[in-house]
């Protein structure tokens, strides 16, 4: 037994670093299975796309700033809103939440990596394939142009000739496989790789949020994979899923799409609630009020979220009783969400709040998201929705919940965890400037859209006549959006410049309670020197030294596997090191996906390189057989 060491010694960290380090240079970049590096490239990519899709949106706003503008014709405008929506929903919102989980979950659990490191690398490469699948055709002038949800028959073979719709459908396939892989990884990590003593009851709310969102992803994504494959089949091999003349139904597409599409917004929202919980606890200096109601609310959202999708289809002429039922169900989800809002506000009310930028973002979130939630209650009522759906009212609603409810917490999370990731603090002053510009600009830009919808302005129109009277509010909306974009640029500049000039941050600059603040900033490749032990919800707020366990290998990669409910250590799993095979497999899969836009045979032919890549990936390296018919003779 080694004597109790009050401080870890240098040779310990050197041995761990040797075991967990990546090869240097480009090869290391391509083969890394370090969850932090993979998450970083994920986040950088999503932020770049957030910027690009935001620019596309600003372009659209300039087209609509006044009546009868001629900046964009219908083709270009249709491409713009399709690109904007598809990028934001498939390539930014869901992936960035997964990426934050990928980065944070092992750190919050005192672990050195995720459960399946190569799968995480594979997730990113496939996601990148999805990004290229949409944006390279855009650069080449064949942008998908029938929206972010391409309803047949408009997307069917008769009205959507060419390959634009196929490009859209396959982009989704890339991102959904990536998301599914990431979700399985996160669920396995959260259930089996917790620190000793972290029972489910002692799991931070952020981790709960990611667990529920990942399970939702696993149950929701198959629907969109199925429906986009069916669409490609209708277009390419003349199946009749969605053609009424062939016994199919266009509404089948809508049902399958929204069965995925509605849970998707909670898949985006729940991790954001995790960010809010983490920030509020730290900055109100008390654990979030109502741990149990919070967990139950998130579970309720996860469960109910699957029972609401028909509220996207109130106008299609389904039986009235169905509309009544889904009205009640859609309203009901306001209860768990309302409980969460109460708990966060109660934490602030009863705590000792400090108002640095992460906390400002929480306040901005509450003020903004609740408006979105309430407009959601309005659109959730079927008879009223018949006036509101497909108008700018819904555009306002969806942006209030997605930006107010997901992006604002995300920006707060960036400010909050930036010191941990980079070892530097962002500028507070410029952070406040960015906050005011973004929150103010967003509200100025999008609140008028509620009115525009109530004044009869439908969605997805590239222009409108001067006699409609929509000019003034559209002008305000454009100016507000531009203000928000300016704020975004300030924030990016802050992030970049602080890398160089920001004040140096220690391990725990905010005096936070959770485990990720117990390692250095930025964390070394092995994250923690020892295995932290957890005795309550707020391990770093306890007095005295951090209790830890020793005994994990210092010279090889190992993960501590614990029991799913109680967090009792069960065994030490060998963890894999860097590998090129996730990238190779992703390339093989990408080739098959892209090929299948042009011919159905690509599925068969493409399976071969995929099979080879996966075989080599999973081929365990052990000694040759010493028994049986293929035993090696001698040595």
């Amino acid at each position, binding site marked *: 037994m080694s004597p109790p060491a009050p401080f870890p010694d240098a040779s310990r960290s050197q041995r761990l670093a040797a075991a967990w380090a990546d090869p240097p240079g480009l090869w290391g970049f391509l083969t890394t299975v370090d969850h932090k590096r993979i998450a970083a490239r994920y986040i950088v990519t999503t932020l770049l796309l957030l910027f690009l899709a935001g620019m596309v949106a600003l372009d659209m706003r300039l087209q609509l700033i006044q009546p009868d503008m001629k900046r964009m014709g219908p*083709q270009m405008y*249709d491409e713009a809103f399709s690109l904007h929506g598809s990028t934001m929903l498939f390539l930014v919102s869901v992936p960035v939440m997964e990426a934050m989980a990928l980065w944070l979950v092992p750190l919050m659990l005192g672990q050195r990596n995720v459960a399946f490191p190569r799968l995480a690398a594979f997730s990113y490469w496939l996601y990148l394939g999805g990004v290229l699948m949409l944006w390279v055709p855009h650069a080449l002038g064949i942008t998908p142009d*029938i929206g972010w949800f391409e309803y047949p*028959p*408009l997307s069917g073979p008769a009205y959507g000739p060419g390959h634009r719709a196929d490009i859209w459908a396959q982009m989704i396939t890339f991102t959904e496989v990536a998301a599914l892989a990431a979700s399985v990884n996160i669920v396995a990590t959260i259930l089996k790789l917790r620190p000793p003593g972290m029972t489910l009851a002692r799991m931070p709310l952020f981790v709960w949020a990611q667990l529920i969102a990942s399970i939702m992803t696993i149950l929701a994504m198959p629907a969109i994979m199925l429906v986009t494959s069916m669409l490609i089949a209708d277009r390419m091999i003349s199946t009749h899923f969605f053609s*009424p003349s062939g016994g199919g139904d*266009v*509404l089948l597409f809508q049902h399958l799409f929204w069965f995925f599409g509605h849970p998707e917004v909670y898949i985006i929202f729940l991790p954001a609630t995790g960010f809010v919980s983490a920030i509020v606890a730290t900055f109100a*200096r*008390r*654990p979030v*009020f*109502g741990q149990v109601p919070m967990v139950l609310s998130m579970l309720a959202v996860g469960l109910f979220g699957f029972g609401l999708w028909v509220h996207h289809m109130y*106008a*299609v002429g389904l039986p009235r009783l169905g509309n*009544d039922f889904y*009205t009640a169900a859609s*309203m009901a989800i306001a*209860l768990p969400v*309302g*409980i969460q809002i*109460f*708990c966060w*506000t*109660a934490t*602030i*009310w*009863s*705590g*000792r709040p*400090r*108002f640095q930028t992460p906390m400002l973002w929480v306040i901005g979130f*509450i003020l903004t998201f*609740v*408006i979105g939630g*309430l407009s959601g*209650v309005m659109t959730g*009522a*079927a*008879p*009223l929705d018949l*006036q509101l759906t*497909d*108008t700018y009212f819904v555009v306002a609603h969806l942006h209030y919940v997605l930006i107010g409810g997901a992006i604002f917490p995300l920006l707060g999370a960036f400010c909050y965890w930036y010191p941990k990731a980079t070892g530097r603090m962002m500028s507070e002053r410029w952070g406040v400037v960015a906050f005011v510009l973004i929150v103010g600009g967003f509200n100025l830009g999008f*609140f008028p859209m509620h*009115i525009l919808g*109530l*004044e*009869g302005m*439908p969605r*997805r*129109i590239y222009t*409108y006549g001067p*006699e*409609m009277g*929509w000019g*003034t509010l559209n002008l305000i909306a454009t100016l507000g959006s531009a203000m928000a974009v300016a704020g975004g640029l300030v924030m990016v500049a802050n992030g970049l410049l602080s890398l160089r000039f920001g004040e140096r941050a220690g391990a725990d600059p905010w*005096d936070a309670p959770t485990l990720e603040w117990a390692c250095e900033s930025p964390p070394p490749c092995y994250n923690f020197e020892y295995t932290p032990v957890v005795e309550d919800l707020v391990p770093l*707020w*306890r007095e005295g030294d951090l209790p830890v366990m020793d005994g994990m290998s210092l010279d090889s990669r190992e993960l501590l596997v614990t029991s799913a409910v109680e967090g009792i250590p069960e065994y030490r799993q060998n963890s894999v090191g860097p590998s090129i095979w996730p990238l190779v497999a992703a390339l093989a899969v990408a080739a098959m996906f892209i090929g299948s836009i042009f011919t159905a045979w690509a599925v068969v032919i493409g399976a071969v390189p995929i099979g080879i890549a996966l075989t080599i990936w999973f081929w365990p390296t052990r000694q040759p057989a010493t028994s049986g018919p293929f035993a090696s003779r001698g040595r």
Partner: protein
Amino acid sequence: MRRVLALAALLLLGGCAGWQTPLDPAGEQARHIYSFLELILWVCGFFYLLVLAFLGWGLWRARRRSAEGPEIAPADRGLDRALIVWSALIVVGLTVLTLGAFFVDRALANAQARETLTVRVTGQQWWWRIRYRDPATGRWIETANELHLPLGKTTRIELGSADVIHSLWIPNLAGKTDVIPGHPNAFDVTPRAPGWYRGQCAEFCGAQHAHMALWVKVEPPAAFARWLAGQARSAASPADPEQARGMKLVTQGPCAACHTLRGTPADGRPGPDLTHLASRRSLAAGTLPMTRGALQGWIARPQAVKPGTLMPAVSLSPTDLDAVAAYLAALQ
């Protein structure tokens, strides 16, 4: 409260486009929905104020809290009770709203029993084909992009699609209903205030979705009957040689492949019926006013007005164009 005030203020800013808005209900269906809107705005406004008040109070208290270390196990009994009250309030609010929505839905459904007229509206890219039954002969009377409705009577609007999904939305009169191939939908309108109202397609349907509107005239039943009788008549004969030449060009030229003019040989089906073209308020599905100049411009260069439109550009010499426009502009 803030929402209602903001609503009122911005409504003024928004201008006087009261003929395409759910906020100015002119029919029973829209009125039911509007009263529910008022209810829900009050309820939502109330809850938002509560959230603001609680948050504001919490931020206010923060000023007087000391900057000590974190509190690991705070006593929360008062807050526990407040959470229960808050949850109960939400349940009550949601129940009120759900019941309200249910009753509105009932009211909308009840209109079906009082239907006295049926109109068939077919959505196509990017215009509305509208058909009435002639009460005298039982034959179909067809027009396009303009709906007339008798005041105070309940009309059933039956929807069909010739191509992709559209959605018929006349906000002053009723909520929208999607127009879906393979799914014949229908809804009822009971207009209560005479006048002109505008409707617009509310489901993205391709390049000219933005320019797929229709005008709706609500008039007393006698005036409506006169209008319908007028629509039932065949196309007006040309009144002068220029119009006669125009008629010849239209009915014997490429126009006849897509358009019908009842009483003439032209009986094309892909495009709108032109029998009483000039009696309509607008052209090209609400895109242009019905004037001689607009008509001429539309025929000469449809792609300039609605890029992507399925109406081909027909090359006509300027005199021919004048003749065609003269003829069509006289088809009241």
